[in-house]
């Protein structure tokens, strides 16, 4: 029974990390209409920043700073934001599609960089031995405490995102997304607002990367898979309802639950079929995305129009 509770805790922790990613993407895409296909890059920067700052001394990679996690995580978020700044400054002035291409490219460059800069990231061997917060509590309390920490982080990000969405700043972002010319006519500078939203979203992703690295206690280039770190998040946001922070979190939890449940279901099949099921799972995620886009483009809970002032 305890083992089952721990399994649920693991799944919820991962769902929480995905929720943080989805909230970040919602800020960029849902609220502002920025097509960021480079989630992987921001996750990588956050994850490696925190990993290098906290992991023990090693000849394999830069390290041995021995920072505690609570000091490293804000820097991970800052690193994500710092990466977003130049990308955004250059490509946000162009049309939305160019941002998609630029972010995709940057993510790929970063993936190759961490694989080849051995002195910094350990190359293909990655950074092992990243401490997980609260591990000293032992099983099962350490794991539950980490879940609580992730949940607290997600709650904080969610509260900030909600506050942003309902603030004048958030309304401006929506205005720019829906009708840029009208927003300009009202005296807003779309490029500056877009850049701010892009940087804030990237900071969320950097923090999510740090939470991921500390949960796995290992970060390597093979762990940076575009399918699971970039596109699954898009599926989550679109399924949950882009533009709505509740939708982002719900989408993350629901899609992750389906992902985990299908893994378990596939394992019940006999050998050969289990192999095929692995591919069918990927196919189903794509199919689900198509169906949602065709029949329910607003997602599980779509964006609600803002309440008219009373």
């Amino acid at each position, binding site marked *: 029974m305890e083992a089952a509770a721990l*399994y649920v805790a693991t799944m919820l922790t991962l769902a929480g990390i995905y929720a943080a990613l989805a909230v970040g993407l919602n800020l960029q895409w849902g609220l502002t209409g920025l097509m960021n296909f480079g989630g992987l890059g921001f996750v990588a920067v956050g994850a490696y920043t925190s990993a290098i700052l906290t992991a023990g001394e090693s000849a394999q990679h830069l390290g041995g700073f021995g920072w505690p996690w609570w000091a490293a995580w804000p820097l991970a978020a800052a690193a994500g934001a710092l990466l977003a700044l130049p990308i955004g400054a250059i490509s946000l002035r162009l049309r939305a599609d160019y941002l998609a291409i630029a972010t995709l490219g940057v993510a790929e460059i970063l993936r190759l960089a961490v694989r080849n800069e051995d002195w910094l990231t350990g190359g293909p061997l990655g950074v*092992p031995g990243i401490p997980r917060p609260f591990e000293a509590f032992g*099983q099962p309390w350490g794991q539950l405490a980490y879940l609580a920490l992730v949940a607290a982080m997600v709650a904080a990000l969610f509260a900030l995102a909600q506050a942003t969405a309902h603030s004048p700043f958030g309304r401006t972002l929506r205005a720019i997304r829906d009708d840029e010319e009208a927003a300009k006519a009202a005296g807003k500078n779309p490029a500056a607002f877009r850049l701010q939203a892009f940087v804030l979203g990237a900071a969320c992703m950097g923090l999510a990367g740090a939470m991921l690295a500390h949960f*796995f*206690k*290992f970060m390597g*280039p093979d762990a940076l898979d575009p399918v*699971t770190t970039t596109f699954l998040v898009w599926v989550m946001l679109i399924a949950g309802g882009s533009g709505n922070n509740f939708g982002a979190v719900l989408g993350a939890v629901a899609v992750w639950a389906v992902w985990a449940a299908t893994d378990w279901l596939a394992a019940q099949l006999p*050998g050969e079929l289990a192999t095929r099921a692995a591919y069918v799972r990927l196919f189903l995620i794509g199919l689900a995305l198509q169906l949602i886009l065709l029949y329910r483009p607003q997602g599980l*809970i779509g964006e609600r129009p803002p309440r008219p002032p009373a």
Partner: protein
Amino acid sequence: MIQLALGRRAALVLGAGGLAWPAVGRAQSEPVRIGAILSASGGLAAFTPPIRAGIGLALEEVNAAGGLLGGRRLQLVEADDQTNPQVAVSVATRLVQADNVSAIIGPMASGITIAVANAVTVPAGVPIISPSATAPAVSQIQDNDTVFRTAVPDDLQGQVLARVVRERGIERAAVMAINNDYGRGLANAFSTSFQARGGTVTASQNFEENRPSYRAELQTLAGRGGPQALVLIAYPASGGNTILRNAIENAFFTRFVLTDGMRDQSVVEAVGARPLAGSIGTAPGSAATPEQRAKYEAAFRRANPNLDPGGAFVAQAYDAAYVIALAIQRAGSAERAAIRAAIREVANAPGEVVGPGEFARARDLLARGAAINYEGASGPIEFNQHGDAQGRIEVWEIQDGRIVTIANVSE
């Protein structure tokens, strides 16, 4: 309407979650559960079917011989890591925490083994035996003695490869290695040893997986220093076959030296038997006495007529499953810590030698209180203090479109 739809969908999600619960209750029932983390999809997928068959064969033999711990059966719970450490960590968590397995066979790749060990199995105290993690770094995991491997580390393979290449009269070789822990580790071991034997590595390249073409890299390698052969350290599906095709089509290289990663009949089928004739390679080998090996091969062929019992890491996977079964019987329980402690007792000398297919005899010996020493299909299976098997390296050659074992050497 939106609310209603949400209600129905949420119910569906909850329903799917509810399905997972009965399995948890079942975990307490009769069969002993053994986990297997295999790369059923992704870069290593080509290796997985015969490896799975090897594990399945060992388990079937144990069950057919009457099971263990007084008639309990072994049950395999399989998970697919998609050749991705992140996925591997989450499926390993499922095996350890939800499926409550006693021990795990796998994962297959070295980097994935390190990730899974650090994040899941070492803290939980679950013994794991990888049949195919060959990177030297696996020895250095702080593992409380829970991580074992039946595969021989790459340092030894690199040395043997260098010697074989020199013996074939090749003095200048170009090296092309997959850019991961496996490729880089083995390329290093080979280059160091090759140069120590008077050979020259004319150029060396780490390539990225899944590119449509490798002509540019091959052209650079072929054009520098007049190499006589290409040493290719790769996996077939994620670039190896493409590199061979590119090299042959453009006549960049005519002689190829391959390693365990490319020791697969599918390579010959995909690239063609004639251009590959005479290509040589190495792989973690079978050091077993010929009778032990023959018993295993016969049993494997009977159960799986279409798969190759000599495929890369297949015998190692079979042995990993056998060692776990024997350790459970020796420990007298399916407790993780007890199994871990018993693994060396059943695998290492001294003791009465038991081989593949002799589970019933081993069980009788243990019942009489005798010590046993498992000599497997892949080698003598003696685990050192790091949990690495001390084994031999196979030298193979492609002759008439078939992979033929030429020798098994220990140094």
